[in-house]
């Protein structure tokens, strides 16, 4: 009887069981890590959307500064706007988990033009990320 049992299940040794188990666990671990990566990517996409809206708002903020400067007396003029060294409102203002920097660049541009940048940075599991928008503004009011 014992002989019969042994003979029939000859292939199922401990070594074979271990090999089968390791193959199974390796594939499970691989899929699990991909799963984790996928969830992290979803999180990255969420943060990127948030960051792009914040960066967009930074541009809008500077546009509003420009409009105030050229349209209303008493709130500066184009030249004073253009000479703003660094937009004071977001002195890297912290939104929860995000940092925004907005600045002006005059290099190589005419006196009635300025290039504005709005960068939002954030850090998540896989490292630091940032998104930057840029636009040129003109002194186009008559």
């Amino acid at each position, binding site marked *: *009887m014992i002989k*019969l*049992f042994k003979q*029939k*299940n000859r292939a199922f040794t401990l070594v074979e069981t271990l090999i089968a188990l390791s193959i*199974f666990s390796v*594939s*499970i671990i691989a*899929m*699990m890590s*991909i*799963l984790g*990566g*996928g*969830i992290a*990517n*979803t999180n*990255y*996409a*969420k943060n*990127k*959307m948030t960051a*792009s809206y914040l*960066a*967009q708002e930074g*541009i809008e903020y500077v546009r509003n500064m420009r409009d105030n400067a050229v349209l209303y007396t008493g709130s500066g003029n184009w030249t004073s706007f253009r000479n703003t060294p660094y937009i004071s409102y977001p002195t890297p203002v912290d939104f929860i988990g995000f940092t925004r920097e907005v600045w002006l660049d005059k*290099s*190589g*541009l*005419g006196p*009635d*033009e300025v*290039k504005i*940048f709005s*960068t939002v940075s954030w850090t998540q599991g896989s490292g630091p990320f940032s*998104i*930057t*928008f*840029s*636009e*040129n*503004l*003109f*002194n*186009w009011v*008559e």
Partner: protein
Amino acid sequence: MMNIKKIKKNKGFVLLFVIVISSIILAITLSIMNISLKEIKFGTSARDTNDAFFAADTGAECALFNDKSTVNAFTNPSPPTITCNGSSVVLNGTSPIWNFVLSGLGSGGQGCAKVTVNKSSSTTAIISKGYNLGDASCLSSSTNRVERELQMTFVASSPPLGPVENPCRNYNSCGAGSLATNPGPFNQGYKFTVNKNGVINALWAKTPDNLTHTVRLYDNVDGSVLASVDINGNTGMWVSGNLTTPVSVISGHSYVVAVRITIGNSSYYEPVSMPFTAGNITVNESRLGTWGSDAIPTSVNVTYMYGIADITFQTN
């Protein structure tokens, strides 16, 4: 014997179990990867959208700036090169429809914009197409290229007119003259040269009677009547008549203004040394017409002003 049978019956259970669990986890993994890939694409498209939109906005602002009255690049038949984003931009097309390409826009300098400015009617139309990717000619075959278009139409306000100028009335001795009795039915006035572009929007006359007189504005080159207005005289007072359509006059050109004296009525005259310049107008000489004619007066007098007529001029 029983045990062996049981083992035999359950043979392959582990394999089935492993396959079921593996495939469930695989399915979950694949679906989550699918979702996250799409979200990344969505997030990237949000960035590309903004890059394209800001490129379009930069193009539109560039067009607006160069459409300002101080630059006026798009009403010039041979437009000057315009400068945007730190480099000179070539205007293509023919007046009044122009188009140009801006490149090197956006934070990475990869964006570009194609702008069309149409000034063919009183309404200016600007169409600016912004792209997140594009070369110096704003071309790209990339599948990640996003376009955002801004259209704006507006009516450009005409620049404010200069102060009102009445060269004869403003001049000290013009308009306080002597009476010429029964001078005859003809045109009396003066020739003047405009020193700045502008409009004439009213004509004046001072007559000793209170009859209706026609005051005319002539082109000095061909003698054509540019405008005329009937004025009811008010015995020795200056009276004006507004022109329903103001006449645009061009710097350096000469015109003649004259009031028609009716038969048997008196008119004023006075000693004035001509030519003289008042404001942006040079009054060259007084002009007297021929008997009974409404045509442009041609007889010249530089010591006496006859008439007396005047214009209201405003620079633009």
